[in-house]
């Protein structure tokens, strides 16, 4: 029986993958052809979705983008034998966009059946856990520290240091919390892992539990990701059944339980202390720090809070060693970052690569320029709290420190492209408006500052005392940056000030001297 792969990834589904899978199954059956349809994750080359891959003696042959209307003719043209036709792409792994990536964390995404544990095991799954089970807790933490991994949620805090703090915090109960509240616009790497290879996240969390002595884990998943929830729960169930979760994991005597909890549409709950409040069943109000969650976290106990990608990178580190991971990257940014190309871009998708590539290479060599065909004018990197970059900054290497040096952030690796029709005063206003909408309300600079920010930008655009109000906007941004309790209010000035500094003409201002 020929195996055919059609993705169950949300983005593929949003383009009709479900309908294509159904049509292919029915039409193959009615033509007397035998095909087994596997619903895999997405390869992340989204302009080619819905992608259909056929397993042949020469390897996997891809076709795309396939619409329902194409199915009949594709079958007639020998789709199941991997024959050529107008939608023929050949081996997807030979396309430069895929071939030139460094897929460490995403090694299996798009390749395997995400919820089939046999498939996971056959593709190097649970090798990291196996190694971890043979190590002392301190040795596991050392591997993570040696890897140089820094928090992929955006803050880039060294993961090993966080784990070590939790390891050394004495307590009767500790927790591993996965921050899967991926709310940044332009980001979808967490979602792709959870839908495309949920076991890798489960394995990473289990290793984290072993490393610090935590027996309970929670995945705090945003409610906007229903397909991820389904895949995670299917994988968790399979892991329990096969002795990879629960009591006495693989006869080691170790215990780790895992549960998915749904958020409820609050962006602020991606902030770690707000997330913990939410998990405890409260309003997602940000907590004062210190104490750090590593010392006083969920239900008052020492807690690791890590992003999905950080945790999903743990298995490869424990499998191949911290040094192996560290050998990718540049400067203090070690390993790989799954970048996400979105917005007005011809070839949007997931691009996992070692730190160091320039933004320009990514945008033009791989992204293919804007989708509209117009010049790219501004690029926002790092989500709604990230700075807007202009063309003159596109040669900046993708590296935490290089971005910090130009008052920008890499964040969670989301890249949103805007063409020359964008009005940057509108985008600056939107950044403030978003902060109004999503502020938890605990601290004044964020709660009130954002509302005043919208008003001041409106006054500048309306031409009312432009110079005076620009000074006021800068002063307000200063207050928000230094006076806010967390990154929500503290980083909203990034998009606002970068828009103002790089694109003053959109505010009706002349360029700054």
């Amino acid at each position: 029986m020929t195996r055919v792969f059609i993705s169950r990834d949300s983005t593929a589904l949003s383009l009709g993958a479900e309908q294509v899978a159904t049509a292919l199954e029915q039409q193959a059956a009615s033509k007397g052809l035998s095909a087994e349809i596997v619903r895999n994750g997405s390869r992340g080359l989204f302009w080619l979705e819905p992608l259909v891959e056929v397993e042949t003696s020469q390897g996997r042959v891809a076709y795309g983008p396939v619409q329902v209307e194409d199915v009949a003719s594709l079958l007639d043209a020998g789709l199941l034998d991997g024959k050529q036709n107008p939608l023929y792409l050949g081996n997807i792994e030979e396309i430069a966009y895929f071939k030139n990536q460094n897929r460490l964390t995403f090694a299996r995404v798009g390749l395997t059946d995400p919820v089939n544990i046999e498939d996971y095991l056959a593709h190097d799954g649970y090798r990291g856990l196996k190694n971890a089970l043979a190590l002392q807790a301190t040795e596991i933490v050392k591997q993570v520290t040696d890897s140089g991994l820094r928090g992929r949620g955006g803050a880039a805090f060294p993961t090993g240091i966080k784990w070590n703090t939790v390891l050394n915090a004495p307590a009767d109960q500790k927790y591993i919390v996965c921050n899967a509240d991926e709310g940044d616009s332009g980001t979808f790497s967490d979602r792709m892992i959870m839908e495309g290879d949920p076991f890798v996240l489960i394995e990473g969390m289990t290793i984290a539990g072993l490393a610090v002595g935590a027996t309970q884990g929670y995945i705090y998943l945003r409610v906007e990701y229903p397909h991820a929830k389904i895949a995670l729960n299917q994988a968790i169930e399979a892991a329990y059944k096969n002795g990879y979760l629960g009591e006495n994991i693989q006869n080691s005597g170790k215990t780790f339980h895992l549960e998915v909890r749904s958020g409820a549409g609050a962006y602020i709950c991606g902030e770690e202390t707000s997330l913990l409040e939410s998990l405890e069943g409260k309003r997602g109000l940000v907590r004062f720090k210190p104490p750090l969650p590593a010392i006083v976290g969920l239900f008052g106990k020492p807690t690791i809070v890590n992003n999905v990608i950080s945790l999903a990178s743990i298995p490869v580190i424990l499998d191949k060693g911290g040094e192996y991971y560290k050998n990718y990257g540049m400067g203090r940014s070690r390993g790989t970052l799954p970048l996400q190309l979105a917005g007005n871009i011809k070839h949007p998708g997931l691009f996992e690569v070692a730190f160091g590539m320039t933004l320009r290479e990514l945008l033009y060599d791989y992204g293919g320029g804007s989708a509209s065909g117009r010049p790219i004018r501004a690029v926002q990197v790092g989500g709604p709290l990230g700075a807007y970059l202009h063309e003159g900054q596109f040669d900046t290497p993708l590296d935490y420190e290089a971005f910090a040096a130009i008052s920008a952030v890499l964040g969670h690796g989301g890249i949103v492209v805007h063409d020359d029709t964008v009005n940057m005063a509108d985008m600056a206003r939107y950044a403030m408006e978003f902060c109004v909408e999503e502020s938890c309300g605990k601290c004044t600079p964020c709660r009130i500052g954002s509302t005043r920010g919208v008003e001041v930008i409106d006054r500048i655009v309306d031409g009312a005392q432009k110079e005076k109000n620009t000074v006021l906007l800068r002063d307000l941004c200063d207050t928000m940056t230094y006076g806010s309790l967390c990154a929500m209010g503290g980083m909203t000035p990034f998009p606002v000030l970068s828009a103002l500094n790089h694109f003053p003409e959109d505010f009706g201002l002349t360029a700054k001297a």
Partner: protein
Amino acid sequence: MQDYQTQKPTVLEILDTHQAMPGNLLPILHGIQDTLGYIPPAAVVDIAKSLNLSQAEVHGVISFYHYFRETPPGDHTIRICRAESCQAMNGKALEAHAKQQLGIDFHETTADGIFSLEPVYCLGNCACSPSITIDDEVIGRVTTEKFDRLLATYKGAK
């Protein structure tokens, strides 16, 4: 609006099944909204009593989270993404078009009770902006024409 007395057994049952769960308020609210479509304001009394919280605390949680609603939704809930990536692909025009076609603003339900309209900040479908969801279905690269076709389909499916 439905009489709460007919909904109360459902609420009590959900409260009962979540009794031993740590941090159970959000799972309870999800359970109620998944079953009834919204959280009846009268349920707050029962929730507060069961969890030993004040009614203000429970109401505070419901109102904090954008996803929870205290009024019944239409047959289908349309969520339109307002975030940057969708804006870069004419999301604002789509938003205006949707409001005009439906004759409602965000957080409202059409007079015939078929559609509710809600804003959403990112669906993680940014590679195919602009995006919307109708109930649990994510739809990408939504043009105004595609939106009209979807409306017609869902209206017909009612």
